[in-house]
């Protein structure tokens, strides 16, 4: 048991004063105990990692620290002073600021405005903007992190990564509010970043440590170990232990997070039953061209997982959407099991047994206010209908069956899907294509984005099982490792064309470096 539970903080002992300390924080939601007595200490000038599965209470804890959630019990101490945080502003006044996981910038304002939003200071005098001052203020923040972004660019013209930089620049504004060293919380900052920017970010985090304390949350454990001084592990709303990053390995962290020894085979690469591959590929794409891709050839056999990798702007997302009929094509022919696939719209694709899991789950993947059951049966009417009529009993039985089969954690099939955790939402979205049992081709666009290790692992297992049962899968992976781990074959795309194909059989996987060479 390497878990050494944190010693009970001693209120009398004034030294050393911690930058931030949390004692016995409790938060109930209807039916869920999100926080169950969490303790946490952040020292001056350290980077504290926070690890835990989805639903472990990370988000709630962070929200409590920036005043978005009011805890039911427990105390928050900032530099030896007990505080009550009722809003983001109060948290900022105490020097606590957060970079949110969901990008929280106003798209139609300039970067400069976003950076100073809510604390314009000298940028606004008597309600009037002073654009020069504002630009200067924003430039100061951007300089801190060495970013080259034009402060007067509209935010929706920036790339994802640039926007993340703007967010960090924005949160650093709290330095101007307090004379004390600030505490900066980074919630999953790397999930959407490209590797060059991740490196910049890590440099930033290390620079931040010079004058601030940082709480760093990421589902990529190696990152956590890389950049943090210490990692605190949460499970079931409690702090279950902490490790020093000097000595720990990802496997050990993982074990603490899930409470038992994790599977060694992260990607469930069982390589079973794949010898009887039919000669004819299930999906054949010939010369597919659209607005952002040209002459793409692709074939996928039944039971095969084909990964497509490519840099930003390679057009792979659009190819994926085009195969689902969600993006217009200019030329090309696509056949599925020898029949021509109608790409005129999403309906035809669904009818042909094509399924698509979009990357933007919350906007495109699910209908938030609708129930788990309705989300699951939205596509395949025969899964819930008899003739034109919905059979509630049939629907309920089927949905409950799938809730159980995929271990979807939901209070009830009638619960609105937006109240589930990300991993469970994604499982419902996947289940939508499975309920009718007629799925032939599955297009997965970043299916594990924003999911924790446990949830990822389950999604991987599901993909594996589907492939084994004969579904052809196209995967746009979150990382090269994921692509390599999951795929049987990898297509490399760049500038809208498929430029290379790399075999990726079990036991003879290429390295990420091999792929990168093909990509550039």
């Amino acid at each position, binding site marked *: 048991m390497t878990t050494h539970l944190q010693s009970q903080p001693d209120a009398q002992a004034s030294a050393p004063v911690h930058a931030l300390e949390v004692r016995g924080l409790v938060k109930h939601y209807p039916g869920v105990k999100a926080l169950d007595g969490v303790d946490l200490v952040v020292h001056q000038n350290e980077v504290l990692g926070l690890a835990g599965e989805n639903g472990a209470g990370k988000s709630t804890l962070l929200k409590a620290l920036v005043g978005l959630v009011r805890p039911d019990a427990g105390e928050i101490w900032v530099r030896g002073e007990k505080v009550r945080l009722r809003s983001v502003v109060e948290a900022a006044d105490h020097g606590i600021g957060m970079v949110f996981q969901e990008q929280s910038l*106003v798209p139609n304002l300039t970067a400069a405005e976003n950076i100073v939003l809510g604390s314009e200071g000298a940028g606004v005098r008597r309600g009037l903007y002073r654009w020069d001052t504002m630009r200067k203020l924003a430039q100061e923040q951007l300089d801190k992190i060495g970013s080259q972004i034009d402060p007067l660019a509209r935010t929706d013209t920036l790339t994802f990564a640039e926007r993340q930089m703007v967010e960090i620049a924005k949160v650093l504004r709290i330095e101007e509010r307090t004379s004390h060293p600030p505490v900066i919380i980074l919630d999953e900052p790397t999930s959407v970043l490209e590797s060059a920017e991740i490196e910049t970010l890590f440099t930033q985090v290390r620079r931040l440590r010079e004058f601030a304390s940082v709480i760093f949350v990421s589902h990529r454990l190696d990152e956590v170990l890389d950049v943090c001084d210490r990692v605190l592990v949460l499970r079931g709303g409690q702090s279950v232990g902490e490790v020093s990053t000097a000595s720990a390995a990802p496997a050990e962290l993982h074990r603490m997070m899930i409470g038992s020894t994790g599977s060694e085979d992260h990607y469930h690469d069982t390589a079973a039953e794949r010898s009887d591959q039919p000669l004819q590929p299930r999906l054949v794409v010939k010369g597919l061209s659209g607005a952002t891709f040209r002459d793409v050839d692709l074939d996928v056999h039944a039971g095969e997982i084909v990964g497509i990798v490519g840099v930003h702007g390679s057009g792979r997302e659009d190819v994926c959407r085009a195969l689902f009929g969600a993006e217009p094509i200019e030329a090309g022919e696509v056949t599925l099991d020898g029949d021509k696939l109608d790409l005129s719209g999403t309906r035809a694709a669904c009818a042909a047994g094509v399924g698509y899991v979009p990357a933007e789950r919350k906007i495109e993947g699910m209908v938030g206010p609708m129930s788990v059951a309705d989300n699951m049966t939205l596509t395949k009417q025969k899964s819930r209908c008899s003739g034109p009529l919905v059979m509630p009993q049939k629907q309920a039985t089927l949905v409950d069956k799938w809730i159980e089969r995929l271990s979807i954690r939901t209070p009830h099939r009638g619960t609105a899907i937006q109240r589930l955790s990300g991993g469970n939402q994604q499982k419902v979205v996947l289940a939508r294509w499975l309920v009718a049992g007629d799925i032939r081709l599955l297009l997965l666009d970043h299916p594990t984005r924003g999911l924790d290790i446990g949830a990822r692992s389950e999604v991987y297992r599901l993909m594996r099982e589907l492939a084994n049962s004969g579904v052809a899968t196209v995967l746009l992976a979150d990382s090269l490792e994921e*692509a390599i781990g999951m795929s049987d074959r990898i297509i490399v795309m760049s500038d809208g064309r498929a430029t290379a194909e790399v075999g990726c059989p079990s036991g003879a996987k290429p390295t990420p470096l091999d792929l990168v060479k093909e990509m550039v």
Partner: protein
Amino acid sequence: MTSPAGADTEVVLPPRPQPRRGVSLRDAGPPIALAVIFLLFALISPGFRTIGNVQNIMDAAAVLAVVTCGITFVLMMGSIDLSAPGVMGAAAIAVSLLVANNRNGNDWGLLGVLVAVLLAAALGCLSGLALVLLKVPSFMTTLGVSAVGLGVATLLFGGVQPNISDEMLRGWAIERFLGLAYLTWIAFGCVLIGWLIQCYSRLGRYAFAIGGAEEVLALSGVKVAPYKVAVFTLAGAFYGLAGVMVTSQLSAGLVQAGKGYDFAAITAAVVGGTLLTGGRGGILHSAVGVLLVTVLTNGLVQVGVSPYWQGGVQGLIVVAAVAAAVIPQRRRNQVTK
């Protein structure tokens, strides 16, 4: 990069096009439509292409322009405002009773105008307060406030038409500067002020931001509610001024001074490129929209289209103009509300 597991599939940053600061197709559509329609009418009708008629179009657009200035800020927030008829009616009656008139001995002059505009602003404020305090959608609060405004106007009206004899206010509609009535210059002033507010004030920028991503403002510690109330108040003030302008044109205070201006202004704003979902467009877009609508109205009369058909032709052209603007930008999975 110390750990290979951190490597992302998106390794290389492609060169990014410089952020657009210039005019996009979306912004260019309405002015082009305006130019095309203007030229079309000019070709067909000799009466249309006279200087006098162009002056007339500018004068006729004045009131609608001021109303649209107000409504644009509300639309930018993603809200909607149907309160113009009531607010304008109340302001029109109020101002006609406060300046020199045939009903009472008041002769407040410019102060009367100010009080009427303040009354209108207060009504606008009421819409905003109901929106943020009662959490009732603006569609309903403004509909309610419009009824309240008409009620107040009817109360003040009291059965006898108030006619104004105040020379200053009457002069606004009659006196001309550089060929245009003072009212038209006031409208220009409103557009300019509106544009300055939109670009250089926190209120304007926040209104824009509320339409873009309201929840983000809250996360950044901005209290949105006061700005919403302020935007509705500002819109009310614009309607009030428009009510005063109608009074000046007619030399009389009418309860119905604002009849029809709600939908006319929304049409103008939308035709100009302001989105009903908020976050896009602005005062200058709306100004173009106002001119477009006014040119249409004027042109159809000039060309001699039957009065029965005018409304229909106007509706058709508005739909066609918007369709022409959106068709090049259609996407397969686009959301259209």
